[in-house]
């Protein structure tokens, strides 16, 4: 039986799966086709300024000295102290380590969330098994539960495992996400034709082969979106890292930032330099992939 040969041909990266159902985004039937008037632009520009100003001002404040920030007309333009502040934050306040730590944490969490969510989401979308609906309801139900509710026992576990101040204390509890599973299920239910899986089965493909050759190619756009969203969320995560990692041990960016602001006379320009360092990587990502991120959030909103 030439199962392997024939399956490779039929399983070839899901040509039909690409035709995302229910397109209807942008152009075509996009709401009203009326042009925005002058007022529309004025209001939007105002909101844009409101959105961007605090970020720009962070950079301005980070380029000044602490004494300058404690004077009455607040600085409205850049000064010459940026490199000095960044250097102090990077070397003096452990921000370099924090940046590396945050990258490791967010990267690991995003990769594992995408992987596990895709295979679990596929099982929920296309396979039949006992307790499926109960398990799915459980997953959705707990999406609503805030993380504060689990913090005390998590802290006990971490203390018992002696993981305090170690990155795995932050990584391991967030390796999977109920939202991710639900998101992938919603996407795959529509984007992955059941016939394609049936055909693969007929050719004798095992489930793992189907995951690899059918599900992953079909899920790729949603995987990218989920990866981006999870990365941003994990990068900015504050509550649990703040409890599990102490400021002077082995901090993530957000925890290191709070460390900067503690102490008798916090150096505001240094804090702003830290805030800038912590935000800059995501801002760069926004400049490069802004369109995709916006598209991803809007897509998630419609599907979710």
């Amino acid at each position, binding site marked *: 039986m030439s199962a392997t040969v024939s399956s490779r041909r039929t399983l070839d990266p899901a040509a039909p799966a690409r035709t995302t159902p229910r397109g209807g985004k942008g152009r075509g039937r996009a709401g009203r086709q009326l042009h925005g008037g002058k007022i529309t632009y004025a209001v939007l520009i105002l909101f844009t300024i409101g959105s961007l100003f605090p970020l720009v001002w962070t950079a301005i404040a980070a380029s000044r000295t602490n004494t300058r920030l404690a004077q009455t007309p607040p600085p409205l333009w850049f000064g010459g102290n940026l490199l000095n502040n960044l250097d102090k934050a990077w070397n003096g306040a452990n921000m370099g380590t924090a940046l590396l730590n945050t990258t490791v944490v967010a990267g690991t969490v995003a990769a594992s969330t995408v992987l596990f969510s895709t295979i679990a989401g596929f099982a929920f979308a296309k396979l039949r098994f006992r307790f499926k609906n109960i398990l799915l309801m459980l997953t959705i139900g707990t999406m609503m539960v805030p993380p*504060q509710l689990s913090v*005390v026992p998590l802290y006990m576990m971490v203390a018992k495992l002696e993981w305090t101040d170690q990155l795995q204390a932050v990584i*391991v509890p967030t390796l999977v996400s109920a939202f991710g599973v639900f998101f992938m299920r919603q996407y795959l239910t529509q984007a992955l034709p059941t016939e394609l899986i049936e055909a693969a089965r007929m050719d004798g493909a095992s489930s793992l082969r189907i995951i690899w050759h059918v599900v992953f190619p079909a899920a790729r756009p949603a995987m990218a979106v989920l990866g981006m969203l999870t990365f941003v969320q994990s990068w900015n995560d504050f509550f649990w890292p703040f409890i599990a990692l102490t400021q002077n041990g082995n901090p993530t960016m957000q925890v290191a930032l709070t460390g900067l602001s503690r*102490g008798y006379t916090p150096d505001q320009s240094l804090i702003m330099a830290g805030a800038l360092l912590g935000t800059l990587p995501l801002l760069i990502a926004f400049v490069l992939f802004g369109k995709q*991120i916006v598209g991803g959030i809007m897509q998630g909103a419609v599907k979710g």
Partner: protein
Amino acid sequence: MTAPSGFTPDTAAPPAGQGGAAPRAATAPAPDPAEQRRRDRRSRRYRWDLRWSPYAFVAPFFVFFAAFGLFPLLYTGWASLHQVELTNPTHMEWAGWHNYSRLWEDEFFWKALRNTFTIGVISTVPQLMMALGIAHLLNYRLRASMFFRVAILTPYATSVAAATLVFALLFGHDYGMVNWSLGLVGLDGIDWQNGTWTSQIAVSTIVIWRWTGYNALIYLAAMQAVPNDLYESAALDGASRWKQFLHVTVPSLRPTILFTVVVSTIGATQLFGEPLLFNTAGTATGGADHQYQTLGLYMYEQGWVNLHLGRASAIAWTMFLILLLIAAANALFARRLRKSQ
């Protein structure tokens, strides 16, 4: 072809191996036994795969989920009935309802509950209304529409910590930019840190700034799914743009609005980083007079500053019950809405 035709265990063809193979082997002109065995093994592996791989696919998720999500949730309830100290978190002493009755008598708990509610309202309501308005504007045909979308979403890229530290500086009493701007138009500076309303408004501003753009995009996505002919017929009936917005857009968006209300409500009950870091004194009290301490922050203070993990668990479970109430109210409200349509 020994493979079952269906792909689910329920619809799978009668097994071709094991039971089915034995009698046939007796009557059919003796097939090669080795070949037969191989075929059996393959079909057995096949059925095994069909039956068990779904569980294997959801297992990693549920193992982690149970260990770090579900178990801690329930265990928090158990811990809330004990006296547990942070200094020795594995030692638990039975305390019954003591932690809860203490909360009931604690004025700071009630204050935190009230603050969570008021901050939740003054951050969620303007945020969602502005988001709706912006989404409406973005739904027009615009030049540089992608630029506007990305720009209003950028605050979403900042962390709670970074945003709060920046806003704390902007809202500073003596040298803050906000008070300086008020001075420019001849108004007195406001003590954003110490007043009850002023501090709560300042904290809410951070929330509003970070999430308005995000919600606007969610609304925009829903608006783009509204069929065009609804607007056309409304326009034919002589409805103005504002009337169209009120009578076509908003009703079509009801489920989405409900969704964002629920999500924002949940977010508001968890508020923690903003009130913690807005306090330039660096304590977890939410201001000298607890004037902007939220439940989340209060829980942290009890558990990790005052070292009472049991009491922190009781606060966590109280929050859980409040959330359940909100969810129930919401479900009721949603059903009412659906009936009225």
